[in-house]
């Protein structure tokens, strides 16, 4: 029972982890991308669309393309939205909050439309579903079944789950230990300083925002291809995108803490299944827990007032060199 709960919690955690790692990288460049929920939706939807078109165009889908095509589609879909966000906020210096919310609205709308109607457009009927591709995404390590409980807890997930953790660790290392990481943080803290030091602020912001968006998009892809088993449900992704943004605050902008945080959030998100015979309304109350925890973390960090735990100083502000 405990093992099941924990491994279910991990399944819940992975999309959040992708989302929050992506958002942390984005925010470290000073861009507050509230379009992340839409970008994650888009990443999932573009992935399943790519897989569906591929599965329908060949007689026997090969495992290689079954993984690569959804992956590439997801990267392109999410990256495209992140690029639009970057262009509007960095080049045109539009308000980041408004732009982000518009991207979210667009991403969800686009995904729900094509997720619901792609099958019809392609001349088929029934639900959008890519079981073959999904089975490759779900494939766990072959020896997992022989290891009993250890296997279930540590080795029973598809490859994207491990990728999420690897990306988070690499991101933490990148931000802390590399020159580019240091310079990226400088851009988010104080772009004028970074600029005067000879760092290309625009380039760093664009790259961080786009890569951040792509990583977040993989969260959507994991959700569709692995968690739900390759079938589209409108609105199935729910509020996970916002939860990912809350997780950024919980993790105090550190991807390695984000790993731990995502497991806690994932556990809290499904805790109501395991709390006995609760009604539906009580279950909804339980779903609130991650947000409650975020608020508590916010209160604690702002009370301790440690500079390292605060958001990047110029988060949300556009930068223009010759402003007087």
């Amino acid at each position: 029972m405990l093992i099941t709960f924990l491994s279910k919690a991990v399944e819940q955690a992975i999309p959040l982890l992708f989302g929050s790692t992506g958002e942390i990288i984005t925010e470290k460049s000073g861009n507050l991308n509230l379009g992340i929920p839409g970008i994650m939706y888009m990443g999932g939807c573009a992935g399943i669309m790519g897989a569906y078109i591929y599965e329908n165009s060949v007689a026997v889908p090969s495992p290689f393309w079954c993984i690569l095509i959804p992956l590439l589609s997801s990267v392109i879909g999410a990256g495209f939205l992140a690029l639009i966000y970057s262009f509007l906020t960095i080049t045109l210096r539009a308000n980041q909050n408004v732009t982000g919310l518009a991207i979210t609205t667009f991403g969800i709308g686009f995904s729900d439309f094509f997720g619901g109607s792609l099958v019809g457009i392609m001349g088929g009927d029934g639900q959008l579903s890519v079981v073959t591709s999904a089975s490759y995404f779900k494939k766990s390590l072959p020896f997992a079944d022989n290891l009993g409980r250890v296997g279930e807890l540590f080795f029973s997930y598809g490859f994207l789950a491990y990728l999420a953790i690897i990306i988070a660790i690499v991101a933490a290392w990148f931000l802390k230990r590399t020159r580019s990481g240091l310079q990226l943080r400088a851009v988010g803290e104080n772009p004028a300083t970074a600029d005067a030091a000879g760092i290309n602020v625009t380039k760093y912001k664009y790259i961080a925002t786009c890569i951040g968006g792509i990583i977040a998009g993989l969260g959507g892809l994991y959700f569709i291809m692995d968690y739900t088993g390759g079938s589209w449900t409108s609105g199935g992704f729910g509020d996970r995108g916002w939860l990912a943004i809350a997780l950024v605050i919980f993790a105090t902008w550190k991807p390695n803490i984000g790993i731990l945080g995502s497991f806690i959030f994932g556990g809290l998100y499904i805790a109501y299944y395991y709390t006995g015979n609760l009604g539906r309304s009580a279950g909804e109350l339980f779903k609130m827990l991650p947000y409650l925890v975020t608020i508590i973390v916010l209160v604690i960090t702002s009370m301790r007032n440690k500079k390292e735990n605060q958001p990047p100083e110029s988060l949300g502000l556009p930068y223009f060199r010759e402003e007087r």
Partner: protein
Amino acid sequence: MSEKRIALGLRNITKVFGDKYANKNVSLDVYHGEILSVLGENGSGKTSLMNVVAGIYTPDYGQIFIDGKEVSINSPKDAFSFNVGMIHQHFKLVDVFSATENIVLGIDDGGFDLKKAREKIVQIAEKYGFIIDPDKKIYDMSVSEKQTVEIIRVLYRGADILILDEPTAVLTPQETKVLFNVLRRMRDDGKSIIIITHKLHEVLSLSDRVAVLRKGEYAGTVITSQTNEKELTELMVGGKADLNIHRDEPKNAATRLTVSGINCKNREGVTVLKDVSFEAKAGEILGIAGIAGSGQRELLEAIAGLQKLEDGEVVYIDPKTHEKENLRNKTPLEIREMGVRLSFVPEDRLGMGLVGNMGIVDNMMLRSYRKGHSMFVSRKEPKNLADEIIDRLHIVTPDAETPVRRLSGGNVQKVLVGREIAAAPTVLMAAYPVRGLDIGASHTIYDLLNEQKKKGVAVIFVGEDLDVLIELCDRIMVLSGGAVSGIVNGRQTTKEEIGLLMTKSKEESANEQ
């Protein structure tokens, strides 16, 4: 220094913002191994000229030569590649980074080795006599430590031409001395140092030559040893100028305000005022000196009713009835309703003082809108007042309805001071009223304060320029770390005495009291 080589040459540099010339046909040379002062009033284009050299601005016209070769500098990175480094007035440092991290920022020399960088920083520090802790975070540093980081950063990149924008504005006299010694050592090492300033005595004591700018144009270069303050001033303002600040003996100086033992904490719970006691007398100017952030702002706000006091009292003595009234923890409105005529010119002009998007008339109404009896306000009286202030203080504005944020700093300050004086105060408090103002506008403000003093107003003046404080004020109270470290007579004190009081630690002053 028999044979001098030109390190940096500027020819006909022109920079235009909108339709205003920031620099117009400026040409000047800097030699290797010399300290050149660029002198000029505010708005004379000193900083924008140097920003052109540092690659922050691109010039609209003109040429830059480095070691005789023409170069084009389009970004700070270009400037660094020509060994030009600028230390800005507002430090460009990342608060949550350590000194080392800030210094290596933006340098790409292959590997990323903070330990090696740290060693090199220590070497540079030893060579020129800096004191620095490479691992200290910027937010834990004092202003002069931050400045040290800035200078080392530029040296770390191998700069031969260093530009310092108003480096002493935030330093105590002692820290300034240390800085000047370091700069002289760098000059002797063959580096070219350009220092932007408007403080004449610094120019005279430090530099080898002085280049003067006036209203964006080059007014000439003189050799420091062959000039004096008077000549420089005339070059700077383009005519004869009276630089002496007038000071009358106070008449019938009766105590107007008694502050006793006030303690005050800021929002983070840190004590910002510690057992502050003093008296302000009618008909005199009480100066308040101290390193920025020593509690000056909180003290004035505490008197004006904007800060909650932990304990202590602020007692106002009415000039006519001699009644005593305690102002402690009263709101500004309550204070006004008690009949206490207190005027406050806050340091944040467009934040606390005026509403930037409103015109002069509307800003006048902010102080008088309660006078009416109906729900409608009359615009007639404030309009008259606005016109009167514009006329009397020579405020340059298209009309009385132009949003004040569009006016220049000096004119904004005149609007604010004019409004506060028009309320016929008995106590006038001004925090850094001449910050960012040029010499002419500053003297207008000094004259206004003197006029109020003559009228028997108790004037409290928070200033940063010690020379001005010593010339203008009758008594000077020095704050250090939120506590009073001494009150001295303005006629007898010296800058060194005040400087020592400014840096006196809390323990020392506590022992003496």
